[in-house]
């Protein structure tokens, strides 16, 4: 959404994302997809080489994409999936998740009381 506003104002944009599905569906002009966990679009902390690698790939895509709403998928693997599957989670359950779980709990209780 912000990419669209900036592009519409006359600035060429590129978006590096771990959810290309949403970027494509919402009409993002240039998309570079990385299979990295949330919170880490450009790689591991302090890994300058990895960050520059992803950035340079994204800059190449910015130059080479000619068709609006194109996604380039980068091939980099993020190691240790078992750890990172949950390591990207915040320390405190997000308010909306707490709210949804509470709703589900109340519904389940309501059923039991019938």
């Amino acid at each position: 959404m912000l990419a669209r506003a900036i592009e519409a104002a006359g600035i060429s944009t590129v978006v590096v994302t771990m959810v290309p599905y949403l970027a494509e569906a919402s009409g993002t002009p240039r998309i570079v997809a990385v299979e990295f966990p949330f919170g880490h679009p450009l790689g591991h902390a302090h890994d300058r080489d990895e960050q520059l690698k992803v950035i340079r790939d994204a800059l190449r895509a910015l130059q080479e994409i000619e068709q609006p709403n194109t996604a380039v998928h980068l091939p980099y693997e993020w190691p240790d999936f078992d750890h990172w599957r949950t390591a990207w989670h915040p320390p405190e359950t997000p308010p909306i998740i707490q709210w949804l779980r509470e709703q589900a709990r109340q519904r389940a209780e309501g059923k039991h009381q019938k």
Partner: protein
Amino acid sequence: MTVDSFKWLPPALANYYKGMAIQKEEVPWTPLTKPLSQCRFSLLSTSGIYLKGKQPPFDLDRERREPFWGDPSYRAIPRDVRQEEIGVAHLHINTSDIEADINIALPVHRFLELEQAGEIGSLAPTSYSVMGYQQSQDEWRERYGPEIANRMKEEGVDCAFLTPV
């Protein structure tokens, strides 16, 4: 290789995203008119970065009280920002790696290196930070998106590099 958009999401959240009704609208398009080595770049992250002591953090307390609300405002982050100056306010990700290294989310120091090396023309004086948990994108579309775009234009920005989290 095709990136799996749902790899990191628990099944319930994955289903939520897949079920979202997304408006496919006309795609805006601004072609590049010069090589990157002549382009001025600005950066944008959705990770909730702010300058400690100089800027208020994103309003997480209000989000805790109103779970369907996310702070839609933005923060201007200068090109000479130091790691020690930033805080990260976001309730939906583990922020500790960004607090250790801003560049995984807002790559200011990497872009300064690219500027030094002549791979890009320059990094603009100002980059931008927002907080990505937004149920409604109305404020972004109608107010803050155009405001950020205008400020970029005022600084002579040619290209924007966006790295949502």
